[in-house]
């Protein structure tokens, strides 16, 4: 039993496609088996909503009279530094950028209440933002200073372009030391006071297509409440890691670079995020449809939390020192239960990624497809595959 994406799209257009979420697919495959499930189900929708620091948006603000060349100058939006190393009026707002006068971690732990992630959320929300810039002035772009309100509706382009999102699996962070630490995985209490994880597990996109058989470059996705596309594989893509028998990586593996029109997105699905003692980031909503082309795909999309394992990593010493060392592995059913056991100690768990919101995204995408509003795409190229020798390398510091 095999299907093509074209056949599935025909069914979607007629309003006849059978679409279920990755959570619902677990039950269907358990009850009916992969064979029957592959016959009955056309699309499985996935979702994830977690902090993703390698995110940002580029915008084109249009030309003022007289003109200004922002490229090579300095630009701030609501006091947050944005990148201006492009042409005259293109700028990039990085999610983790901060106002120059933010105390950062000088007052430890820093609170990081406002930064690039919040600028993006407010821009999408349609708020007026204050843009200030200084430039060096040229014969063709004489203006040297600019101070204006900007609004997303007046911008030429506003595009979310995230170099790395959607990690396929992630570490569980703990702290073995005897002092509290503040990390991108949240606040970690001393001596195994808590264990924080960050994945939607059985709902997470790349865990439902572990070998990237349907998800590839060009795949149309739910991005930030609008439609987006997979632009490339994400930075630090690392498909060659050890996997379980079911194909699921046992540690962080694949990643995606995604792109989409910010003007269609919703602030609810792009949330500015403040990590105590760490910095600002952006929590991004992503949902990816998986066409059930074969029994094999039906099997992959039926993966459940009990079958997805990840590594427990001590963020007090080995992680910051770049030493990869696991304290053991746990599965997502254990993590979601609220406590896990590490060396005979019961440790409460906390999550950065929202399972509730991941489920909501998978359901929204399901509705879009059922209503014929969202068609599936054939990927134009594959992501680097598990058996390729593509891997994530450390930096070797060389003498200058």
């Amino acid at each position, binding site marked *: 039993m095999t299907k093509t994406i074209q056949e599935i799209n025909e069914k979607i257009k007629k309003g006849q496609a059978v679409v279920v979420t990755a959570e619902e697919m677990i039950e269907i495959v358990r009850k009916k088996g992969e064979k029957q499930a592959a016959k009955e189900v056309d699309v499985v929708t996935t979702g994830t909503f977690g902090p993703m620091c390698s995110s940002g948006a580029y915008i084109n603000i249009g030309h003022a009279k007289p003109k200004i060349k922002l490229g090579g100058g300095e630009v701030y939006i609501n006091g947050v530094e944005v990148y201006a190393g492009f042409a005259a009026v293109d700028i990039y707002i990085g999610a983790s950028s901060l106002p120059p006068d933010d105390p950062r971690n000088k007052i430890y732990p820093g609170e990081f209440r406002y930064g690039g992630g919040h600028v993006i959320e407010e821009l999408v929300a349609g708020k007026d933002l204050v843009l200030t810039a200084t430039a060096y002035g040229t014969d063709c772009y004489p203006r040297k200073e600019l101070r204006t309100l900007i609004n997303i509706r007046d911008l030429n382009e506003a595009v979310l372009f995230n170099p790395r999102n959607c990690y396929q699996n992630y570490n569980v962070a703990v702290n073995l030391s005897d002092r509290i630490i503040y990390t991108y995985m949240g606040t970690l209490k001393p001596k195994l006071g808590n264990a924080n994880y960050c994945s939607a597990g059985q709902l997470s996109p790349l865990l439902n297509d572990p070998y990237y058989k349907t998800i590839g470059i060009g795949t149309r996705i739910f991005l930030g409440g609008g439609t987006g596309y997979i632009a490339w594989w994400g930075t630090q893509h690392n498909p060659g890691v050890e996997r379980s028998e079911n194909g699921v990586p046992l540690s962080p593996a694949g990643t995606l670079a995604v792109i989409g029109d910010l003007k269609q997105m919703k602030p609810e699905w792009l949330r500015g*995020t403040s990590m105590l003692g760490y910095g600002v980031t952006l929590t991004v909503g992503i949902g990816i449809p998986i066409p059930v082309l074969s029994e094999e795909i039906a099997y992959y999309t039926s993966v459940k939390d009990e079958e997805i394992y990840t590594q427990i990593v001590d963020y007090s010493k080995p992680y910051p020192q770049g030493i990869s060392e696991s304290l053991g592995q746990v599965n997502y059913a254990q993590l979601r239960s609220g406590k896990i056991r590490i060396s005979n100690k019961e440790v409460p768990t906390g999550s*950065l990624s929202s399972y509730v919101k991941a489920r909501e995204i998978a359901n929204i995408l399901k509705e879009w497809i059922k209503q014929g509003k969202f068609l599936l795409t054939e990927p134009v190229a594959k992501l680097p595959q598990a058996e390729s020798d593509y891997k994530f390398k450390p930096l070797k510091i060389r003498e200058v």
Partner: protein
Amino acid sequence: MTESKVVLHFPPHLVDKPLIYKLSRDFDLEFNILKASVTPQEEGILVLELKGDDDNFQHAIAYLKENGVDVQALTQDINLNYELCIHCGLCVPICPVSALVKDGETDEVKFVKEKCIACELCGKVCPYNAIEVSLNA
């Protein structure tokens, strides 16, 4: 010497009386105004840090009460803004008294106000500013 933070509720008819002035003039108390506001019902709320001799402190409180002012010790009022909360659960293991709990069925995070001791730890940790701390009695 007593040093304490108190919340004073002034009924509308007392809002413009110089009661606070008396705290320093008649009872020799040092005070710091932490918060002052008037509610839509015209009730005045004043949060003060008071410092002074033990006896004077007691007399001052008695004086305020006699005049119809409601006096309470300050505790922070914590609330979870469900509009902002994404139910990630990052705050759950941080709360020392399990006042933030994840519902095993729905995965939603709930705030159990009766258990909360207003330590404010969750407010610092929540990445989305969903924990609201207000000065209330």
